[in-house]
């Protein structure tokens, strides 16, 4: 018990100074109540336990692949100083662009072995080979064309089904060139419609000049020799000829590493003789080129697959199933899809050789005509030369005796493809007579006419019908009537059956189809008979165009008035203008 002594509070202010003290005399503590003692407790030692955590060794396995043949599939470098210089320039300029999309060779799904798949995957992309100057082309291919080559290269069965005008021929030739250079194929057979044989030969001379090629033609004995000749790695034959030479083709000793069918829709009917013969050709790789793999029904595709991979597709298969199965085998691009890659106007020069009948008439007429002009001496006028030029150009269109025409054969083949794709085309000629003959040949494609002989009041009806009639795929126009004041921008194809003197007039004609608001890119096919007056005129115009472009490259003038001068017209026949010097 404790007692507190307090001092008496005088005032309320003194209360804050209140203090308390313990009085030891009247207090007690615990020690006075309990006895204090110590006791001892023993604790066990703490023994730490080590728990081992095993860290497994990080190991792996390796798979190795070697590609001994890889270094050899580049075509020989060009020795021309221009191209060599360009290659060096390309090397200097190159710079890696991480965002650039490369044109890689990708293995198709039917190549299963990892070794083989990696062989293709690990090749350098084609665009880089072109960019570094290792892979040379006469003209730089568009990126989509490199994709086409990358598609075909590894394929043992494939369809290149690009829309007409995108360069299926060039893509096939360039890939064949790569395959031949790599030693992956040694013998190639190209099968195409007869009018296209010379075109293939010419395209080969442009895109693969170092590859020997021959067209199978001539007598039966000559053809047999050609078929069996190992000297020529690439042979070109037309469909009709295959039927005649079937016994040679199916001979045990005959084998092709690659057979390419151009216009492969010809074998869509599986039971046709053409299809049977083509399928019987012994071969390792099979490619089909066609702008219209399906014309009427999905079974068309089954017909083509019977050539590529027999039994892979079956008639009557549901559409989704066909699409799923065939997907990896087909590459199809339309102009719309590759519009960024290509110019909105795509020019194709159809350089054709006259038929033998045309050629003999042409040679006689030129010889006779030049002699006549020379004999005129001082009375020679430009009008005389014009007359000869026009006469020769008419022969280039049609042989006046037999009616034979290399241009018409080609035109029919091309319009067939245009019509099969549901597209429309304009054909220009300067002569109504030529248009008449063309009309007869194009009858199956619903040709309409629009030229000077069509009365003015009927012309609008013709245009309306051409626009609206789905069966009318082609309109025939003369340069004069069809070149101004018409908008036919729904047409994607323009054929210049013969050439006008002045490119400005041709440009006007082409622009009927290629206008603002055009549905897509326009493909312009300029038909030209090689080694004739047409080629000479074209060469002069090309020279003038180049000169014009060099002088006024910054000018954006759409049409250039670069027609032939008086001297140039005389110069076409190496004639001396009466009042001037000789023009070479």
């Amino acid at each position, binding site marked *: 018990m404790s007692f507190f002594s307090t001092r008496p509070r005088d005032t309320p202010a003194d209360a804050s100074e209140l203090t308390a003290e313990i009085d030891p005399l009247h207090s007690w503590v615990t020690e006075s109540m309990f006895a204090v003692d110590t006791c001892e407790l023993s604790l066990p030692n703490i023994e730490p336990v080590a728990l081992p955590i095993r860290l497994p060794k990080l190991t792996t396995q390796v798979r190795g692949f070697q*590609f001994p043949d890889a270094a050899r599939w580049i075509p020989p470098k060009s020795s021309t100083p221009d191209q060599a210089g360009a290659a060096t320039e390309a090397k200097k300029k190159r710079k890696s662009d991480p965002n650039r999309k490369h044109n890689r060779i990708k293995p198709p799904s039917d190549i299963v072995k990892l*070794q083989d798949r990696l062989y293709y995957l690990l090749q350098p992309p084609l665009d880089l080979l072109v960019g570094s100057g290792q892979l040379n082309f006469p003209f730089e291919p568009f990126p989509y064309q490199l994709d086409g080559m990358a598609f075909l290269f590894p394929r043992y069965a494939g369809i290149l089904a690009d829309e007409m005008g995108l360069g299926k021929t060039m893509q096939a030739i360039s890939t064949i060139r790569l395959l031949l250079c790599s030693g992956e194929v040694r013998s190639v057979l190209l099968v195409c419609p007869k009018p296209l044989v010379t075109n293939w030969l010419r395209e080969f001379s442009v895109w693969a000049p170092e590859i020997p090629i021959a067209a199978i033609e001539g007598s039966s004995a000559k053809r047999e020799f050609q078929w069996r000749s190992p000297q020529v790695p690439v042979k070109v034959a037309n469909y009709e000829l295959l039927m005649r030479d079937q016994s040679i083709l199916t001979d045990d000793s005959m084998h092709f590493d690659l057979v390419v069918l151009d216009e492969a829709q010809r074998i869509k009917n599986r039971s046709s003789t053409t299809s049977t013969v083509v399928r019987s050709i012994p071969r390792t790789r099979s490619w089909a080129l066609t702008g219209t793999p399906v014309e009427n029904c999905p079974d068309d595709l089954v017909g083509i697959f019977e050539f590529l991979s027999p039994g892979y597709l079956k008639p009557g298969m549901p559409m989704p199933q066909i699409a799923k199965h065939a997907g990896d085998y087909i590459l199809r691009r339309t102009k719309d899809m590759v519009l960024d890659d290509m110019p909105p106007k795509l020019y194709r020069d159809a350089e054709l050789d006259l038929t033998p009948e045309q050629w003999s008439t042409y040679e006689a007429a030129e010889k006779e005509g030049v002699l006549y002009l020379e004999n005129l001496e001082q009375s020679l006028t430009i009008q005389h030369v014009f007359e000869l030029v026009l006469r020769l150009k008419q022969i280039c269109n049609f042989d006046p005796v037999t009616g034979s025409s290399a241009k018409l054969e080609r035109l029919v083949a091309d319009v067939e493809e245009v019509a099969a794709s549901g597209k429309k085309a304009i054909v220009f000629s300067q002569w109504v007579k030529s248009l008449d003959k063309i009309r007869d040949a194009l009858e199956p494609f619903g040709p309409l006419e629009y030229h000077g002989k069509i009365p003015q009041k009927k012309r609008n009806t013709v245009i309306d019908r051409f626009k609206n009639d789905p069966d009318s795929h082609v309109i025939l126009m003369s340069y004069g009537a069809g070149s101004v004041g018409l908008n036919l921008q729904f047409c994607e194809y323009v054929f210049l059956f013969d050439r006008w003197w002045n490119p400005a007039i041709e440009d006007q004609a082409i622009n009927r189809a290629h206008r603002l608001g055009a549905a897509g890119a326009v493909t312009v096919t300029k038909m030209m008979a090689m080694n004739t007056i047409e080629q000479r005129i074209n060469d002069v115009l090309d020279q003038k165009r180049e000169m014009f472009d060099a002088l006024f490259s910054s000018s954006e003038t759409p049409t250039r008035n670069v027609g032939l001068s008086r001297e140039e017209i005389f110069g076409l026949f190496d004639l001396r203008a009466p009042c001037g010097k000789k023009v070479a």
Partner: protein
Amino acid sequence: MTVKVNAGRKPKSTGAVTTDSPASFLAIETPQTSQFLFAVSERMPDNLPKKNEATIGYFTVVNDERTGWTGGLLVLDRAGRPLEFQCTLPVRPTRAHEILFGPTLRSHLVAQVIGKLLLSKCRTPLSLICCDLPEGLKVESFTKSPVTLVLEATSQDRHPISADSISGSETVSIAGATFLVAMERHAELEAIADFYNDLPDAVEPFERIREAVKEAHSQLSRQNSEAA
């Protein structure tokens, strides 16, 4: 009449395939101090490769969360054509590895586990090795060839790393790209740089390795699912 149709639809084999057993494992060790910290006098070996025989080995490691770490070594000739490809099976470090190796795990996997094994299995003599990962430079301990880092192929925060971020190194320009090499091997690399003038692109081959690794993985998973 015998008709041969598509007789050889499958392509002929393009080379030899080798499958190797697991390599012996190195004891776990701390990463070595970067060799590039020490300036060593440049040396020029007498046995430089001949131009026509010059090769270039591209080495990279792909890390995929699902499959793990896979390494690829692509050997090209001087024109960029594939001669050989070596590819590891994926390595999957455990959580224990991640904890105990800490930040050194990546370097250990790239150089000592994957890089070393790939180089030991490569059959083609390599004139030059290049990588796109800074850790890859450490494979120099396992090869006599100069090991380089292709700066344009590297990525740090979506940008190539800079040449001065690795000390003790110098750069050489090859086929339009910047190759970083230890300064003691600089003269050696300079001497062979011109051999690779025909190389179409010095960065793109890393992409090929990644594509090939993807292809190998997809085939592996296909085989596994078929087996299951």
